[in-house]
């Protein structure tokens, strides 16, 4: 299960990377990045997963005393939350950028934005 998730995660990352490298359209690139981000998040979750354990929420079901043996590693889950937030931030920023770029040149092709080079 965990391996499947991890494999899927990596597959998503590769798909995202492939998409970001092959699509010329800015919006498609952003979509590709979100796919890759999702893949990363999946990988993180998969790393933290331990077979047969429960969610790391200490409440009635799991007491603080036996948490160590019963819950899965909470840290990756915490990390993933942060990563998602950051991913959203970056995606939003990229979209804002795309908007500005489109306003300027009415084009979404990345090849049109090579004024700076060398």
């Amino acid at each position, binding site marked *: 299960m965990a391996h499947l998730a991890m494999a899927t995660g990596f597959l998503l*990352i590769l798909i*995202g*990377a492939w998409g*970001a*490298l092959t699509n*010329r359209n*800015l919006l498609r*690139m952003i979509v590709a*990045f979100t796919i*890759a*981000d999702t893949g*990363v998040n999946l*990988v*993180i979750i998969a*790393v*933290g997963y331990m077979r047969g354990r429960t969610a790391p929420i200490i409440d009635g079901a799991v007491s603080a005393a036996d948490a160590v043996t019963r819950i899965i590693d909470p*840290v*990756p889950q915490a*990390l993933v939350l*942060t*990563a998602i937030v*950051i991913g959203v*931030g*970056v995606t939003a*920023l*990229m979209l804002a*950028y*795309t908007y*500005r*770029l489109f306003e*300027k040149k009415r084009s979404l092709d*990345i*090849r049109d*934005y*090579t*004024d*700076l*080079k*060398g």
Partner: protein
Amino acid sequence: MSALYIIAVGLGSAFVLGMLNERQKNLGYVITLAALTVMSAISAQWLIIFAATGAHPIDIFTAGTQPPFAINLRMGVIESALTLLISLTGLLSAIHMGNALVARGRRAMAVLVIAIMALCGIVLTRDIFNLFVFFELIVIATGGMVLLSDDERAVSAGFKYLIVSQFISVLLLIGIIFAYHATGTLNIDGMAEQGASAFALAFFLMFIAVIAELKPFPANGWALDIYESSHPGFSAIFSAATGTAVLFAVDKLLLIGGAEWFPVASGVGIVTFVGANLLALPQTNDRRLLGYSSIAQTGLILTVLGQQDILGQNYLFIAGGLLLAHAVAKAGLYWLSDLVASRQLTAWAALKERPLLVFAFVTFVAMLCGLPPFPGFYAKWELAHALAAEGRMAMLALILFGALLEAGYLFRWFGYLIKRESDEKVVCSATQAIPVFAAVIAGWVLGFVWGELSVTRFGLNNLLLTLPLLFALSFLLIEWAPAWLKNTVAIGGMVAFFVMTYAEYDPLRLIFAVIFLIGGAITLLASYSAHGRRVGFYPAAMLMYAGMIMLIRTTDSFGFFAAWELLTVGSYFLILRGKESEPHALSYILFSLGGAFLILAGFALAASAVPPAPTFSLANLAALTAPVAPWVFVLLAVGFMTKTAAIGVHIWLPGAHAEAETDVSPMVSGILLKAGLYGLFVLLMAMGKQQLFGIELTHALLWIAALTALLGNLMAIFQEDGKRLLAYSSIGQMGYAVFGLALMNHLGWLMALMFVINHYIYKAMLFLSVGGVAKRTGTRDMYKMGGLITLMPLSFIATLIGIIAVSGVPPLSGFGGRWIFYNAIMTSDVRMPMVILFLAGPIAFLYLFRLIYTIFLGQLKDEFRRVKEAPFWIVLPQMIYVALLMIFAVFPGIALRRVDEYLNQFFPEGGLGWSGNEITSAYGYWNPVSIMIIICVIFGVLLAWLMFVDRKAQKVKQFNIVFSAEAPYRPETTHFAWNFFAPYRKALGFLVLPLATMFWGTITGLLHTGADIARRFYTGNGQTYAFHFLLFVIVAYAIRIGF
């Protein structure tokens, strides 16, 4: 206050800014500045505490728990220094960007504060995931700050940056999570305890991702676009602060990775350093160039991080010195670039009307190039020594090569600034000036601090506390004064310093001291002829003289090298003052720095071979043994010979000496060249004969010197430009002097000294008189002159005496040199090089005659019929030189006798005998007084006789010549001067093919072509850059596995 407040203040003020009304822009700005000030103050407070008490770093536990259960921050002396640097850069940039920030409003300010906070966070945090978060914050903040620019292209640059950042963050995250998986902790120190070998791939991903944030070559196209297009205030942060923070992050990761990852850092670093510097060569856009330079500098520091296995406790001193110099200078330059309207490098010429801004620029460039007295200099010195001590000479060579490239484009830029024309006006408001000059002050303060550190740590010398340098720098403070006043102060200072110290020199050094100080003072008399304030002249000249006198006063290699660099830089500024001197000054500084780097490498290598001592005394050179010794000898000798313009590395000299100002040429020719000779003296005194691959190195030196003498003289005879002729003649004369040294016997050295003295006197005199003529006629082309003898009689006399002396004809002092030469070669066991020198001797007559004939004799041209004698102050030193030459011709013993005795300690055999006025050697004898009297009597009698028999001679004019019974057409067609030695060119012209020029031209051409080809990979396409990045990662991994 706890360091946590740095983060807290940053976040808090960003929130406050977010809550402000859209129109409360000024309030927002005040809050921003206040926040940044508080952050700086906290950092400064900690820095002072740590620096003063030497306390251990403090850990701050955020959730009140120990790691790994909570994030912890650490504040130590390094962290406090770096956060201070970052927040100060932020504060000054905020001041600098005031208008832009206020115009964009509170959001922009919040983003700025967040950026600085995040950068400080990177420095402070000890948690790897926290590091990632701060990184992402920086990415987002950078994305926001890029939009501050007025440049529309910045948007696309920002987007490219975001694309690559996405890839980086993916790698970083995956790396972190697997590292966590392997170690069970996110704490850096926790990971470090376990070592990275267990999760090498994960570590590699993290490591390469963080390194990618340093924009390693060649995966850095996106960053350059940011550098080029964003607001310079932000570029300053991007370069100085971001670079600093990320470097520290790399350092932390290396803590995890351990020593086995050092080579990766070194490899990436050095490739980046050399590659980025190479690519910077063809740049014409100032900010992009600075971007490349930033990347290169971070690459260098990365290299240093990778060398920490051998640097030990000096690692912080070196990395810190380089980092601070880079950060301060680069931020300063970015701020400065805002004052220049257009983006061409040549547009910086607009600054030249503002001496203070020029001074700022010079400070920054000197810091970047690691020139004394700035921190980079001390760091470079220690780095070279550390590398050499461990035998990492290839790394040292690459670093020095990269540094030379960097100096190349920076000094070329400085040349543009000084020599090009610009009609743009520079408007410098207070908000723009404050950051720049804050950086300047910071630079000098850091120079002082590093000097002090070098004293306490290594027992080196704080250059900013040495009297000659302080004297030179003090001229910066009196730049407002008129030139004559400064000139008087300069002369007074030099003479006074000589009087104060003359008892301290041994006879050999005394001769050099007299030439440097008293000789320099005499040369400076000519400077009275200049009018106005002459801004920039005196600090440069005094810097040169300070360097020279420090050179002979020092006893250790550090002082020697520092002095060498000082005199190089000072003379470079002097040479650059000439009208057309821009390319020549550049080639001068490049050859000189190249030579200086060789010297550095030589000293470093030498120091590696002797038992560790606080400083490396020059006398210790004698203790070196093979296999190190010959290499040290080669490095130092070649280094010194770049200054004496030995053949092959001579091509800088003619232009530099010819294009320099009238009173500068005698300084750089008559005096400066002697520094190289002094170096060779020191080298040979200590090391003597060395063998490499069975070749006696002094014999190689003999050949080089002889060829230099021959080719220098040969090239001199084909010059049309009078000062160039003299310059080539200097090359030849230096060849003689080096030859004397390389003979390695008593008289050889005495001859070299004789040449030192003679060459100073007559070359200074000739340069002054030819310079004076050029000043009056407005041209240096000799064939355009002619017949000036009656109009400029004193200059003629000086030239006449000069050429007789140079040619070695008795009774003047040049003969003494020749006589000693013949006696010296009698004892030498090598004979073939003498053949070349014999050929070189008479060739001197050719160019000397050409010099005096084409200028002073022959036909007077119409437009010069009314020229006057050169100005009094230019003639006066010439007349002093004439007197000196006469005195020295008749009584050479004044100078030579004591030296002759002194040389006995090196070569007890073969000294001269001094009985009465007669000078004897083992082979011959010579009586200068008798010679002078006899020749004067014969000459006088014959002159009297001629005046008696020819008392009625009719004085005629220039066209009263027998012209095959025709009348000459015009003076221009009658003055035989152009291509004067055409038959000689036919016979031996093939010897003066400019092979050396072609060689160096090809090398620079290849570098530029290579850089241009490399530039094509920087297509400007964000996807391509992303591809570069992935490729970089893959290649780095492949190489890593291959290890």
